[in-house]
């Protein structure tokens, strides 16, 4: 044996491969390497294989793990068997794949595994080689009946084995590519689902007593929160955590949050609110899934909170005197015991702040690798308490992010300790002129308690109506589906109206009163605002989107 031959381990059978085989092998490998369509290349390849092996027919079978069988993907010969399915492990093909070894059947009549003629084709002798990959055999390459009536021999078996190599390689690459495409598709779907979920969360509201944030651990989240105004001036809120983190949790989150909003709109007492949602979820939710949630109302006029807690982590109430109170759940999570009656609990916020957070917050691991727990959250709250509510949320999330966030994390603050000013009420809605009537009612009602006389009150109502009408006409240019938010604040000697939109920024320089001595129809609104209010400022909001008009009227 020469030195060169000793270096290359050559199986005995392969030693007789001649230049002809090397040629077809090279053609084959090149065809697959250059191919963009493996299916098409495969169809050409089986014809070449049949010719080269001098066989009546050739076929490529691939396993279909989902269906649990083996299916013919390409064939050459008198009968088309593409699409033919064989149960895994059955037939000569099944045996080849199961044993991952070349099978040579010289006479099918003597082979117990032979499944009989397929679609009228009589197989007398069969040679079948596995398509081997790192993950095992993914299929088999088969040739049937030598054309001259001779039998397949060891040389044929070796050639077929050789040809199976580039075929397996190409098919495996195609399979991996398909999986990659599928993974990308799923990723895109998840991104869409995340966007969809985000739209379910209420938009952040400027100068509003409730500030909340959701950080999903993955693309989609099982956590949610919501808040919305009731016609009587109270603010309804809820925060929840669905068991699990996958798509099933995300879908249940959508269902639970819409269910909570639906029931909460009626102003139902929190205990009854959760009981109703619980009945609904318990009757429809898959066994083993549940939702932890808090639901309640905040009345900005009295600063009273009424809430109920279904299995959600304890809430922390930090009072004005800096003492902290823990409010524990009074019932199990929603969706488990359909007939459970939850009870409501009331408390005065009075200069304090209520913190609600999902278990993603308490489960964050600190420097010692242990969850920070309620004690860690208390310390975190103490540290940030001097800041404005928005800055507090930012600081808390910033700190949590530096530790290891493993779960969905959601945080909600209801603050009565935000600033010297008191929130008197507000309204959020679409830029539909039909809503102007509601705006006037709301403003009239809020201003009533401040001691203005009827005439002053009517003028204030007019000014705000004009401001909102300007947003509809100029900022949203008559589109009715823009968002408009009005919040009313009591500073120590004045009432402050903040009107926020999310339209294209308007140049503040263009907002100025016109000369009233010229008589023309348009552009009166700003004049009216200017003469009614003591001061007004038009600016870009701090978060950079839309416009903010602040109007200030001194108390009588």
């Amino acid at each position, binding site marked *: 044996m020469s030195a060169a031959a000793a270096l290359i381990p050559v199986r005995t059978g392969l030693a007789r491969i001649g230049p002809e085989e090397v040629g077809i092998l090279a053609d084959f490998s090149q065809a697959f390497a250059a191919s963009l369509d493996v299916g098409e290349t495969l169809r050409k390849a089986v014809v070449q294989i049949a010719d080269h092996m001098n066989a009546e027919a050739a076929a490529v079978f691939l396993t279909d793990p989902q269906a649990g069988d083996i299916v013919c993907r390409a064939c050459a010969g008198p009968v088309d068997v593409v699409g033919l399915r064989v149960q895994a492990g059955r037939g000569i093909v099944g045996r080849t794949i199961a044993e991952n070894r070349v099978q040579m059947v010289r006479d099918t009549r003597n082979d117990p595994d032979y499944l009989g003629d397929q679609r009228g084709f009589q197989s007398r002798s069969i040679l079948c080689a596995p398509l081997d990959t790192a993950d095992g055999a993914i299929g088999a390459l088969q040739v049937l009946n030598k054309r001259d009536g001779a039998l397949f021999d060891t040389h044929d078996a070796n050639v077929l084995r050789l040809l199976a190599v580039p075929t397996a390689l190409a098919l495996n690459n195609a399979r991996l590519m398909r999986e990659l495409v599928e993974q990308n598709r799923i990723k895109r779907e998840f991104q869409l689902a995340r966007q969809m979920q985000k739209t379910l969360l209420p938009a952040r509201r400027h100068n509003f007593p409730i500030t909340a944030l959701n950080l999903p651990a993955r693309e989609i989240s099982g956590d949610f929160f919501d808040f919305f105004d009731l016609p009587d001036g109270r603010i309804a809120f809820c925060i929840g955590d669905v068991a699990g983190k996958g798509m099933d949790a995300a879908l249940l989150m959508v269902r639970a949050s819409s269910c909570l909003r639906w029931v909460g709109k009626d102003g139902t007492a929190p205990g009854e609110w959760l009981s109703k949602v619980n009945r609904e979820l318990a009757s429809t939710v898959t066994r083993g899934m549940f939702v932890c949630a808090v639901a309640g109302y905040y009345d900005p006029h009295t600063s009273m909170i009424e809430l109920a807690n279904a299995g959600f982590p304890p809430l922390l109430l930090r009072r004005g005197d800096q003492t902290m109170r823990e409010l524990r759940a009074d019932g199990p999570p929603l969706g488990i015991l359909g007939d459970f009656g939850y009870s409501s609990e009331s408390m005065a916020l009075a200069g304090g702040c209520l913190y609600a957070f999902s278990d993603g917050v308490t489960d964050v691991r600190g420097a010692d690798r242990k969850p920070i727990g309620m004690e860690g959250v208390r310390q975190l709250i103490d540290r940030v308490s001097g800041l404005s509510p928005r800055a507090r949320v930012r600081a808390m999330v910033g700190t949590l992010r530096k530790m290891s966030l493993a779960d969905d994390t959601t945080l909600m603050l209801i603050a009565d300790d935000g600033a010297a000013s008191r929130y008197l009420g507000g309204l959020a809605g679409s830029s539909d*002129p039909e809503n102007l009537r509601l705006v006037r009612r709301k403003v009239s009602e809020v201003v009533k308690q401040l001691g203005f006389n009827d005439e002053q009150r*009517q*003028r204030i109502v007019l000014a705000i109506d004009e401001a909102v009408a300007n947003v*509809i006409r100029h900022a949203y240019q008559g589109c009715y589906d823009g968002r408009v938010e009005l919040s009313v604040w009591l500073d120590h000697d004045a009432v402050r109206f903040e009107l926020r939109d999310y339209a294209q920024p308007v140049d503040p320089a263009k907002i100025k009163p016109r000369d*009233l001595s010229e008589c*023309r129809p*348009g552009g*009166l*609104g700003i004049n*009216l605002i200017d003469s009614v209010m003591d001061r007004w400022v038009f600016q870009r909001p701090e978060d950079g989107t839309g416009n903010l008009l602040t109007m200030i009227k001194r108390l009588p």
Partner: protein
Amino acid sequence: MSDVNDCSTVDQLGVRLLRVRGEVDLSWSQKLRKAVLEALATGRHVAIDLSQVSYIDSSGIAALVEGFQNSRGKSQRFSLVAVSKPVHAVLELARLDRVFPIFATLEDAVK
């Protein structure tokens, strides 16, 4: 005063009289504007009865200003009659109370 926003035109004492009722704001001031311009298309003297208007904003005032301007130079008359207190307050605020011919009644307007 009724909550229903509405305007209707009648001929009375030789005047085309447009009776407006409700709260005139951006949601329907275009309708008022059309009604004013239609009345001006045929009537020689157009009067707007504002006694049943509980609220008017600048878009409603703009409709009245446009009517007033159209009437001038066409030897047409354009009057506001029985102006309600809330409307008067807004006219004052916009300093238009001395621009419009304002009459307590329709009879006063035709004198």
